């Protein structure tokens, strides 16, 4: 039970009135709040996810509790989607990492590209920095009881930036194209195994329904900007032409675009809602972070999309506004569960017990990270149980040596360890090697360029997936589903399950639990399953999760309204300079 719900004053008559007409899933969320199983914050998050509108959420909180809670809901209502009124106009200059390929909503998969896309196109639902869901091109949504059908009401009166109206047909076309398994869509990494084109159904002129191939309590995330490819384009649109017209419904239009150099965005005169604050945004592309940081330091740009402590620690010294978002971004240190001596869970545990996680967070991130507990349940996820119910793993060399002996290698062993040349990863790998040395494990480290490390990204042709010990990077997600599936579920070549299982972890108990978790709609059920998964992974330790680090963006001191998300978006429509 969350502490902030204790002693709540409930106006049952009003609450009953607000419950009337809600679906079973929405009613359950309200019940969870009243039962004290959800904090107000989690109630807002879960409520928006399950389609309760902000006014309804506010009403429920007012009926349930104190004025303070109601003001929370009002703050939510004044979301980032509403551009702030003051200081309209002006030009914002922003640095982005250079898009690595052509800007095509179907295929784009890099940070710079998706950031440009996110300022020009729009999604059905907006997920904010606190992982709360807000209406965007969809005005409301709901899921059936087992989360296999999700229904969305589409906003009316929206126009594309060429002046044409947006309709449900455009929404249906966009989704059918992006989830077509015969196509080349990057979004298949999200929709694969969950949504097929025939599952995208136009219900009427204002409603679209998604019939999933399997229950997915976290499907809403797939229609937000987290699934960055999923902007809405006109029915029948040829995605290959995107760089010619940059079609979208967003607050900006593209005035000019030069690949590898930059782009100029202007306020969209056809925008359906509150228009962007800056009249113009000048985007400059940088090949690498250090150059972008130098540009910010020199005052050449007003803001930069992302920086890392490893490359740009000077930005943390106080001269800039730093936007630090707790995130699920992490590294996964896989140990081949099918190869001696990592076949023994005790050996895997021993390696994990050598790591001083708070010291690692201090050294590598200057505190801009949270320690991990050898499961992908990051502290930022509301489903995460964590300590004390799931004990936090700490450095214990004596225990590590005992475990090594129990695992059959009391004198240690030699093993190769491969990783990629990305941000702090080589440094972390060296910490692992030096830490393991304390218990007699001799790790021979190889640091490779990222493309060599990934190889073909399939088993047998990838140092990442084939190495005895392998350290790989994972970006942030709003829900842990991807982290629970590809790297941890048993490998099944026919279905594609476990396609990133570098550890070759193969545990039927885990497969069942993770599938139950993904299908679960109810937060309390998810938490119960999460606890079991956390405990199981802590015991088996197929992968070491040492930390989850914050997503960092920086602006000049006089810049306000820049809105990054931990999943890599960089929204500039509210940006202004004083």
């Amino acid at each position: 039970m969350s502490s902030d719900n204790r002693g709540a004053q409930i106006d049952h008559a009003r609450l009953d009135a607000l419950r009337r007409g809600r679906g079973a899933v929405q009613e359950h969320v309200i019940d969870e709040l009243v039962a004290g199983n959800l904090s107000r914050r989690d109630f807002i998050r879960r409520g928006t996810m399950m389609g309760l509108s902000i006014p309804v959420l506010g009403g429920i909180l007012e009926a349930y509790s104190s004025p303070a809670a109601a003001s929370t809901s009002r703050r939510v209502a004044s979301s980032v989607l509403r551009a702030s009124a003051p200081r309209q106009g002006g030009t914002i200059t922003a640095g982005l990492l250079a898009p690595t390929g052509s800007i095509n909503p179907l295929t784009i998969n890099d940070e710079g590209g998706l950031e440009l896309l996110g300022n020009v196109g729009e999604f059905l639902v907006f997920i904010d920095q606190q992982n709360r869901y807000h209406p965007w091109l969809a005005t409301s949504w709901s899921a059936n009881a087992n989360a296999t059908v999700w229904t969305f009401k589409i906003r009316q009166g929206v126009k594309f930036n060429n002046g044409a109206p947006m309709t449900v047909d455009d929404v249906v076309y966009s989704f059918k194209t992006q989830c077509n398994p015969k196509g080349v869509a990057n979004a298949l990494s999200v929709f694969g195994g969950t949504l097929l084109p025939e599952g995208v159904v136009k219900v009427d002129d204002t409603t679209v329904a998604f019939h999933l191939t399997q229950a997915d309590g976290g499907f809403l995330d797939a229609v937000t900007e987290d699934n960055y490819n999923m902007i809405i384009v006109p029915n029948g649109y040829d995605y290959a032409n995107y760089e010619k017209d940059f079609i979208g419904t967003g607050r900006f239009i593209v005035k000019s675009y030069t690949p590898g150099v930059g782009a100029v965005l202007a306020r969209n005169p056809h925008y359906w809602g509150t228009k962007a604050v800056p009249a113009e945004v000048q985007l400059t592309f940088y090949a690498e972070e250090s150059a972008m940081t130098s540009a910010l330091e020199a005052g050449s740009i007003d803001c930069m999309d992302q920086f890392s402590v490893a490359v740009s620690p000077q930005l943390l010294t106080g001269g800039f506004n730093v936007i630090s978002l707790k995130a699920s971004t992490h590294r996964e240190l896989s140990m081949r569960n099918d190869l001696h001596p990592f076949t023994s869970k005790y050996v895997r545990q021993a390696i994990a017990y050598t790591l001083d996680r708070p010291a690692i967070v201090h050294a590598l991130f200057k505190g801009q990270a949270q320690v991990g507990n050898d499961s992908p349940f990051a502290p930022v996820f509301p489903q995460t149980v964590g300590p004390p119910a799931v004990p936090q793993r700490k450095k214990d060399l004596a225990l590590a040596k005992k475990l090594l002996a129990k695992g059959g290698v009391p004198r240690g062993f030699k093993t190769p360890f491969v990783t990629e040349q990305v941000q702090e990863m080589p440094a972390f790998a060296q910490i692992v090697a030096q830490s393991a040395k304390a218990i007699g494990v001799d790790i021979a480290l190889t640091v490779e360029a990222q493309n060599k490390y990934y190889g073909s990204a399939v088993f047998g042709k990838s140092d990442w997936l084939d190495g005895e010990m392998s350290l790989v990077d994972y970006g942030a997600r709003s829900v842990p589903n991807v982290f629970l599936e590809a790297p941890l579920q048993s490998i099944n070549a026919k279905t594609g399950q476990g396609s990133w299982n570098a550890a070759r972890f193969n545990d039927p108990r885990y497969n069942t639990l993770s599938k139950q978790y993904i299908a679960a709609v109810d937060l309390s059920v998810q938490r119960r399953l999460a606890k079991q998964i956390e405990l199981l992974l802590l015991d088996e330790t197929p992968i070491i999760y040492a930390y989850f680090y914050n997503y960092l963006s920086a602006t000049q001191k006089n810049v306000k309204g820049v809105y990054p998300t931990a999943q890599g978006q960089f929204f500039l429509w509210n940006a202004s300079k004083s």
Partner: protein
Amino acid sequence: MSRMGAEALTVPPAPSSPKAAPEGAAGAIDVSAKRIRREHLGQLLKSWSFRIGGAVLLFWIVCAIFGQAISPYGPLDQNLLLVNAGPSGAHWFGTDSLGRDVLSRVIVGSRDILVIAPIATLLGTALGAAVGLVQGYFGGVVDNLVGRVVEAVLALPVIIVAFLFVVAAGPSTSTLIIVIGVVFALLISRTVRTAVLQERELDYVAAARLRDESSVHIMFVEILPNVLGPIVVEFTVRLGYAIFTVATLSFLGFGVQPPTPDWGADIAANSGYLAAGYWWETLFPALAIASLVVAVNLVSDSIEAVVNQ
């Protein structure tokens, strides 16, 4: 050398060359060669540039051999609670991003570069001398054929050629030695070829042919000793370049793997922190490379000056 005395009777005198000994007696030539070597050594030892260069070089060789014993800390020892600490009494060169002592890493980091660069240069010199001898001695089609191949490879910058080879073969100490050795061999072969072209026209080579000596014998026993001067100079000059090449490849991530201390790799790993003000992590390994290259060049210039007298 044993036949050189007989040949020298017909060779025009050239004061600094062994083949130019004034008299025909073998003993006299040996004595003369020893005397010349002694003179050269004496001249070198009198040279300030040689002394300074040699002292610095000797210092790094001592570090390479006894690094672990004389460094104040273990070069791999991490202190995660004392990262990026500036120079102090406890850490003269400060600590790096993993809390390792920079001075200790600089001292021990001399080992790889001082193993790889000289061996690679030696390999390159041996290969280059052999190729240059063949080209220069045979001339004609062989010279043209090998010459075009060499020119084709050298049309690209040396570092790019080495980079391509290392990428293809995968980074390792032996790969670095072979790649740098082969690339430098091509450069050295051109110098040796030029020297051999002059030598092969001399009478002592003609005399050897008249005696029906094999080509291998003439190249490696008759001509080689007479082109040793330029080869030695090439070796010392190329050694400086080899140090730079090793450091550059390490900087690019194609040298020894972390956490092994290595100047180039440490500069690459820490250069990102320069803008943050952590200058010591980059400056000291860079100074180490610079001092070693300057030292080798001082020694090489001194040798070249003496040989060319």
